[in-house]
């Protein structure tokens, strides 16, 4: 299972400790509000893929708007993998 905490940690790593000011990171946080570049979001998505040994659907991952969307896509793929 991919959790909000795990993704939060990755976001902090991408921002090199500079936490986004005034934003509490939660499921409904919009990715666009975090001030991450497309490269940083890419790094987060594909690091998650690597640690969980799963492939996100790239088209859906690219369309994800909130942190929760992204986590859901990853967990769906994980679930599909487990039942297969």
């Amino acid at each position, binding site marked *: 299972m991919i959790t909000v905490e795990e993704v939060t940690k990755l976001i902090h790593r991408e921002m090199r400790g500079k936490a986004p000011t005034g934003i509490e990171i939660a499921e409904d946080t919009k990715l666009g509000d975090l*001030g991450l*570049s497309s*490269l940083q*979001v*890419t*790094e987060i*998505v594909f690091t998650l893929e690597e640690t969980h040994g799963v492939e996100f659907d790239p088209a859906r991952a690219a369309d994800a708007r909130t942190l929760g969307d992204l986590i859901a896509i990853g967990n769906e793929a994980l679930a599909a993998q487990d039942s297969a």
Partner: protein
Amino acid sequence: MDGRKHYGFILVSSLLPLFGVVAAMVLLWNSLAGPSDLVAFLVMFVIAGLGVSTGYHRLLAHRSFRTYRPIKIFFATAGAIAGQGPPLIWVAHHRRHHRVADKPGDPHSPYQEEQPGIRGALKGLWHSHLGWLFDPGLTSDPIRYCPDLARDRDLRVISRWFIPIVLAGIVLPGLIGFALTGTLFGFATGALWGGLVRFFVSNHITYAVNSIGHYFGRRRFDTPDESRNVAWLAIPSFGEAWHNNHHAFPRSASHGMRWWEVDVSALVISGLKSARLAWDVMEIDRERQERRADGLRKTGGGRQGRSAPPVPLAERKDAVVGVADVE
């Protein structure tokens, strides 16, 4: 990189090398340039040129051939040294360019917001040359356009370390200068010629393929875009200037399609193949070229020409992004 950091990088990376060129000219005028500077320039020019052409463009963006991991890392790093962006971003922009070349959505078409007259033409050329990089809305999502490459950790690492690699590409020719002269002055002028002057020259050659290569030159194939073969740019661009050929056959490892169409990058790839360091090299024989040329002649080309699919799959909501679609 996007947003302010992107803007800052583009500004510095286009102005600083320009100042470098001015400084180098002043030194040259005063006979303060030596053979070590020429060596530093040439070595770095070849590294950056092949990095962009053989590495970023043919190996990564179009997967024209396959190779071993250390060679892939070498070419991707060499491409980063050129300073045109991290591999994942460069490839995302470039694949988008191919999908919608000279149509709405193309990140660097000279025909964007077409305006009449010579002023409009110059504006379009400037946009496709360098102006597009200053567009604050510029973004091509690597997740959408190059998930295949983003799954490669090496390319993510090189993308992350992009700026330090660019800086190393300025220090390295300095070390060449120092090794050849043994003086700090040699280090400084080596870094100037092999770093800043090379940066300026080689990037403007790549940009010229995007601007001139969609404007002035001959068209062998009636591709649904305005791509051109620009013979005089062929050698300095390492073969990239056979741009109309390239738009007709994006995956072809060779952009030159006749014996006189010199393509240094294709020579490097075939050299690697003979040494068994590259395989699955995309080769397009003459017959396939003729068939494509005939087919395109019937459908009609140019920027009004119909491209298939009309909307790139990568931008359609209902379609799964296939790697096959984005290369």
